[in-house]
């Protein structure tokens, strides 16, 4: 669902779910003194929920592409499912895993709707880069907006390049 839901809708439901006035949010606050709404922890949780499918999709697809016999060979050697995953399957999907981690992080970095909903826009606590850009434009402070945007652009560009270079070194030509 997080893949297809508008971010603001997902953010709204998370806001309602974790509201300290009732339900789960109230219980968390009273029992563990944790408040997810308008807090940094809330931002992290919402980002994880929102971005998880972008991570799971490529990783699951990479695992499905591995020959079944790899896991079967490991089982016949007496290894458990966890050992097989840790020592055989995971190392053999490294490029896909790296791509998924970097792209998910980059995607999260630019998230706007969800984080604004659950985090608000509290300077020093929940104001993230993408919201800062929006704020600067709202205040007609184009110089700051430009600086923030350039930093985000630079970080994202470096991430995409690192994925591209890493995958190029890891992937062999079929003719080799």
């Amino acid at each position, binding site marked *: 669902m997080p893949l297809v839901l508008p971010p603001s809708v997902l953010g709204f439901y998370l806001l309602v779910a974790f509201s300290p006035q009732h339900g789960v949010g109230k219980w968390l606050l009273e029992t563990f003194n944790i408040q997810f709404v308008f807090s940094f922890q809330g931002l992290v949780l919402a980002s994880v929920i929102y971005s998880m499918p972008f991570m799971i999709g490529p990783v699951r697809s990479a695992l499905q592409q591995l020959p079944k016999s790899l896991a079967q060979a490991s*089982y*016949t050697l007496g290894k458990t499912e966890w050992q097989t995953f840790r020592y055989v399957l995971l190392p053999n999907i490294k490029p896909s895993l790296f791509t998924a981690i970097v792209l998910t992080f980059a995607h999260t970095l630019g998230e706007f709707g969800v984080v604004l909903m659950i985090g608000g826009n509290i300077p020093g606590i929940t104001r993230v880069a993408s919201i800062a850009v929006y704020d600067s434009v709202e205040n007609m402070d184009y110089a700051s907006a430009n600086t923030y945007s350039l930093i985000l652009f630079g970080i994202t560009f470096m991430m995409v390049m690192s994925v591209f270079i890493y995958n190029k070194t890891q992937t062999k030509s079929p003719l080799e």
Partner: protein
Amino acid sequence: MISIDIEKKLKGYGGQQWLKVKRDFATGGIIQIHGPSGIGKTTFLKIIAGLIQPEKGIIKVDDVLWLDTSAKISLSPQKRKTGFVFQDYALFPNLNVQQHLEYATNDKEWIQRLLHIGKLETLSTHKPEYLSGGQQQRLAILRALAIKPQILLMDEPFSALDKQMKLELIVELKQLFSELASTAFIVSHNLQELENLDLTDFIDLGKANFY
């Protein structure tokens, strides 16, 4: 004694057919499994290993029940611990030759002996992609032997080896099978290929409803 009585539905291009095997095999023997493509040779090996479940059946190894579908008993592949040589080798791309064997056993001396038998000592730091087809196949055999299996299941294990290498390896394997008292089930298209292995039994899965 290994008692096998299994029935497995197979799906193929020609529709459905049944793989039925009911036989007893002496432990410590070498059994050749023969039959045309698609008849269920690999499936038969995987059923013994616990990697595939049959519709119906019982497998008993030295009075230990590995499988009884009516009693819903089925030992996991990890507990059966059969040595399995896969037709596609199923080597782990991230591990080198030495690491393949270390993944299977902690016995350093045994690893060194296996490397010597497979003539892979000088290639111990090589990953599978840097090995020839024959070297990969030998590594697959050594990895299966590394766990000193009670039952060894080999799916076309010598197909990529040249004649000389095959003969040398077979001599060593005969010695190892006898030392480990392993029972080997070997799938082979070539009826002559295994004649130097002193086969003790032979089954042709091509014969319908094999009993």
